[in-house]
């Protein structure tokens, strides 16, 4: 079955072609089910490959399938090839599974939209590109998926292209991603100059010999790759595009900006774990940026009123967690959190989507309240998601986040503090959103209120599946005290070489005792519940308390509410300055200097010509005179020579 790994990306491609080219004649239902079916088919193939992989011995679970030689120029020979190993299988299953659920959800959600066909073909193209990204066996093919995913996010964010803000957001997303890809590209060039090949297996197996541990070269490669990751997964410097990406339809945000695309950066860092392990400095950089982003985004998330913006900032902060995990060397827990996050974040976005659907497009939480009676299913599934993300005990979020906090404590106390404070804020703003939308008194306008209705089953069933997953998802990672856990054992071998390098390098910290683990778990649950209580107090028991808090520190609130004016800063520093400078270049330099020089030559020649013209007076006598003068000169020359 592993031989048929190429089927996985092909299905969504076929779905894209069918919907794209022939979609005009199909009805909405057929288009939707073709799209969902294609992704579902690749999910089925993925699961079967997963089981086939399980049969193989843990050590040898890495199979390559080369299709054909794509680029062959000089000593560069890049094939179209797929790599099947635990990491890529998990990613494929997450992408196709969550993708299929979201496709089904969006059949209901996008009902009645004019660009239905265009939406589904773009969604399938996106899943195709994402699957190429995660299943590629070399950096170049991954880069193809990388940019393809960027393109699809541009198309889907800009889906409502009439709205200028939507197409602006799409353009911003693509450009910021492109800046990240610029770093990724340079990293790839460095890899090629050092290794002479792009395929993972060759690069990682030969890395320890070719590169010196902690040397400048390996640090440079890893940092450049990390620049690409920050661009794609919206970390500190290049995160501004994600909040604006909420302009796109909600299922798009669910799929792209929660579950799949933004995790590509984490996947890439995890895939290059060997390189990162050899460059401790860049590991710390990754961890620091991850932690900082987690905290920074959480603070902004607390003050937002638009429900999707809150979820967007929570995505950025959760991604920060994953990067922190990778930074501290716990790649397995990073990926585990990635999986659980995919479940509950997609769930939260889709629930927000169904709220928006019910409220006929209203997103501002201040105009919502007490919706739990009108939208029971959405309410319960949204609550499940919030419990999961906050990290309350039985839910998935608890296990993955706790594991990250555990490993970051091992690495350095500072990381643990960053993670803990961010966890408090996470549970606070998530429960704030729950209480503002579903509990408290209803602030819904009259005309919106009377046709508040629960979403059709086509939308609520996917919500329930994901709610179940975010409940069950964590069990895979229950830490059987002292041993690893199911998920860890499955994915462990992929990161074994990286762990070997890290343990070989750093002094081997002895595995902390069980007691410490239990205490840590208790602390993280406590943090989650504390956040819940504070939110309940501020938004249920005394609704006016948020205003009092704002009065006490208006300056800070304004700063955080306006997202630290980062967007405006970027525009001022980069966008406008380059545009002004290039306008100057065009007008001043190109038009005046170069063209001036060229036209200048022309005018000089003309001036010279007009001087000569004066000789042509038209009087016969002058001509005779010049003949005479000429004659005299010639004769005198002859004579006097």
């Amino acid at each position, binding site marked *: 079955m592993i031989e048929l790994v190429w089927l996985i990306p092909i299905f969504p491609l076929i779905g894209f072609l069918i919907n794209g080219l022939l979609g005009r004649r199909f009805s909405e239902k057929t288009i939707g089910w073709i799209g969902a079916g294609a992704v579902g088919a690749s999910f089925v193939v993925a699961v079967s490959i997963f089981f086939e992989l399980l049969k193989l011995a843990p050590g040898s679970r890495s199979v390559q399938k080369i299709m054909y030689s794509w680029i062959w120029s000089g000593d560069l020979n890049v094939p179209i090839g797929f790599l099947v190993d635990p990491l890529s299988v998990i990613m494929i299953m997450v992408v196709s599974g969550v993708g299929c659920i979201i496709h089904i959800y969006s059949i209901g959600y996008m009902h009645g939209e004019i660009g239905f066909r265009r939406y589904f073909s773009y969604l399938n193209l996106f899943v195709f590109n994402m699957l190429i990204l995660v299943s590629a066996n070399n950096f170049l093919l991954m880069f193809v998926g990388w940019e393809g995913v960027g393109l699809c996010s541009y198309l889907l964010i800009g889906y409502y292209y009439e709205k200028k803000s939507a197409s602006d957001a799409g353009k911003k997303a693509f450009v910021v991603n492109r800046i990240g890809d610029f770093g990724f590209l340079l990293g790839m060039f460095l890899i090629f100059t050092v290794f002479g090949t792009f395929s993972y297996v060759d690069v990682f197996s030969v890395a320890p010999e070719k590169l010196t541990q902690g040397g400048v070269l390996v640090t440079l490669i890893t940092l450049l790759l990390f620049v690409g990751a920050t661009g794609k997964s919206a970390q500190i410097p290049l995160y501004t595009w994600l909040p604006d990406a909420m302009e796109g339809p909600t299922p798009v945000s669910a799929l792209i900006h929660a579950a799949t695309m933004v995790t590509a950066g984490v996947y890439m860092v995890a895939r290059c774990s060997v390189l990162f392990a050899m460059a401790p400095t860049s590991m710390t950089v990754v961890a620091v940026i991850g932690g900082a982003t987690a905290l920074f985004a959480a603070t902004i998330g607390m003050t937002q009123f638009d429900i999707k913006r809150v979820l967007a900032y929570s995505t950025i902060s959760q991604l920060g967690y994953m990067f922190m995990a990778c930074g501290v060397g716990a790649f397995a827990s990073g990926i585990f959190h990635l999986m659980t996050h995919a479940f509950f974040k997609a769930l939260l976005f889709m629930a927000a989507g169904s709220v928006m659907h019910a409220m006929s497009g209203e997103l501002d939480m201040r105009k919502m309240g007490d919706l739990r009676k009108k939208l029971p299913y959405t309410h319960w599934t949204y609550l499940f998601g919030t419990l999961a993300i906050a990290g309350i005990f039985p839910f998935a979020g608890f296990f993955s986040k706790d594991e990250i906090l555990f490993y970051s404590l091992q690495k350095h106390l500072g990381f643990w503090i960053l993670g803990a404070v961010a966890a408090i804020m996470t549970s606070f703003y998530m429960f704030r959103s729950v209480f503002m939308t579903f509990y408290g008194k209803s602030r819904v306008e009259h005309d919106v209120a009377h046709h508040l209705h629960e979403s059709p089953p086509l939308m609520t069933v996917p919500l329930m599946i994901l709610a179940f997953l975010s409940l069950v998802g964590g069990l895979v990672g229950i830490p059987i005290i002292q041993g690893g856990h199911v998920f860890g054992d499955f994915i462990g071998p992929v990161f074994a070489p990286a762990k070997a390098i890290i343990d070989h390098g750093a002094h081997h910290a002895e595995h902390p005792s069980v007691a410490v683990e239990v205490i840590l778990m208790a602390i993280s649950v406590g943090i989650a519940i504390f956040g819940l209580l504070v939110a309940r107090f501020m938004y249920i028991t005394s609704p006016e308390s948020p205003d009092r808090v704002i009065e006490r520190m208006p300056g800070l609130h304004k700063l955080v509410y306006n997202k630290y004016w980062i967007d405006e800063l970027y525009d001022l520093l980069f966008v406008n300055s380059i545009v002004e400078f290039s306008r100057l270049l065009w007008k001043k330099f190109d038009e005046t200097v170069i063209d001036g020089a060229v036209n200048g030559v022309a005018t000089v020649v003309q001036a010279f010509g007009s001087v000569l013209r004066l000789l042509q007076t038209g009087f016969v006598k002058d001509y005779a005179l010049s003949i005479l003068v000429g004659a005299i000169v010639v*004769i005198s020359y002859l*004579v006097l020579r």
Partner: protein
Amino acid sequence: METILFYVLAAVTLLSAIFVVFLRRPVHNVLFMILTMIGLATLFILLQAEFLAMVQIIVYAGAVMVLFLFVIMLLNLEEVSLPKEPRPLRWGFGIILSLALVVILFPVFGRFVPSIVGTGQPEGIVGNVSNMELIAKELFTTYLLPFEVASVLLLVAIIGTVVIGRKFTKD
């Protein structure tokens, strides 16, 4: 005696040439021009080129000058307000320029002429063959082609004159 004759004729020719150039009314110019032509013809005779003298008188004095007279009469330039001649300053400039030309020509004579002539003494033309016979023999042997070309040139000139002289019709 011969030198006296030369000087008289030279003076006459020069004077009439000056009158040709400096007199205002064109008729006077033409008449003095005819006088110069005749003066030159006599000088040719002095230089034993009788045929040329005769040709000079017939062609130049006879035909060309008559043509001039005819044109002046045809356009009755007398009444037409003759263009006022240039101010004396231009004349002065003119004279200086011409003297400059003469001065320049002198060294030419000095340099080239003696080497060719050497004696400065007029030898007699060989034998008693008449001037015309010599010219004819030379003309129709070595210079035959130029002779024919000259005839063609004249033909062209005639046609040109007829075409230019045609009545200016507004076609």
